[in-house]
């Protein structure tokens, strides 16, 4: 009984940590890629769309690694959203002013964690409707 409980807790921690790692990494990478591509002279809308496309493209390349370790839909959905949003936001910001590398990484990681929390909230909402 105790070992079964321990196994459930260990499993829960593994996936929580995996979700956080996947989303923060993809958020950072997408934000970095968006700011690497976008030039501060670009129009804000072009920068936003380019950042979004870059983020989503990058997530498709990196996603299989995280999927294979931490889950299918539970990884794919938040990670794609993170990549899209981090790419959009940081592409747009880069068209407005220059950001430091650290700002981009921290901001991208934060987008990933926020998206993950919103996804958990949506999941909890759907389950509460079920019950």
């Amino acid at each position, binding site marked *: 009984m105790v070992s079964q409980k321990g196994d459930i807790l260990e499993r829960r921690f593994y996936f929580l940590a995996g979700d956080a790692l996947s989303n923060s990494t993809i958020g950072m990478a997408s934000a970095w890629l968006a700011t690497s591509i976008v030039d501060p002279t670009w129009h804000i809308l072009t920068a936003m769309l380019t950042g979004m496309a870059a983020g*989503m493209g990058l997530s498709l390349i990196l996603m299989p690694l995280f*999927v*294979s370790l931490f889950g*299918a839909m539970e990884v794919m*959905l938040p990670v794609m959203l993170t990549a899209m949003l981090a790419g959009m936001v940081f592409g747009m910001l880069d068209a407005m002013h220059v950001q430091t590398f650290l700002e981009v990484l921290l901001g991208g990681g934060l987008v990933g964690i926020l998206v993950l929390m919103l996804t958990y909230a949506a999941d909890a909402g759907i389950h509460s409707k079920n019950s």
Partner: protein
Amino acid sequence: MDESTKRKWDFSSSFYDLMAYGPERRWAPDKRNLFANMQGKVLFVAMGTGQDIPFFPPGRDIVGIDISPQMLARARTRAANYVGLLDLQVMDIHKLEFPDHSFDQVVTSCTFCSVPNPIAGLTALRRVLKAGGMLYMFEHTGSHVFPFNLMLDVMTPLWKSIGPEMNRDTVANVKKAGFEIQQVNNIYLDVVKTIIATSPA
């Protein structure tokens, strides 16, 4: 035999187990709970590389089918360790070679994201299922919730050449094939779910 589907899954068999480690570990408790319902003569559709076999309750009488010989070749090692009757056969769900009403239950696991014609496939399952027989499904489907529905629509064309379609309405397809839905239980969002249905008498 649908040759293009067979080729797709033969190709995917080489990296399928690598990709399935995380998903299978995550879904293990829910699959175990669903498969615990297995009783009587059971048809398991889309056996793949046999990742689900460790979740089968022991001592059952199961026929497992898959369209891909390469997938089943990998499944045979796991099948050999199963304590019970487990017969694996290469077969296309659209052309089931079993007599009418020959199974008490049909079980699927991440199957109807990939069957080329899901309603025809489900109708074929109803044919081989006894009247009143149970259909147990563990499936991922499309979503009705924004922005997840948008994400799944975007991913589907990118993914389906090597794997499943992400945006199918499998619950609606089960109803269209003539089954009566008994229970739908969402496991992750409204995307990963178990569906329990019966074949009407």
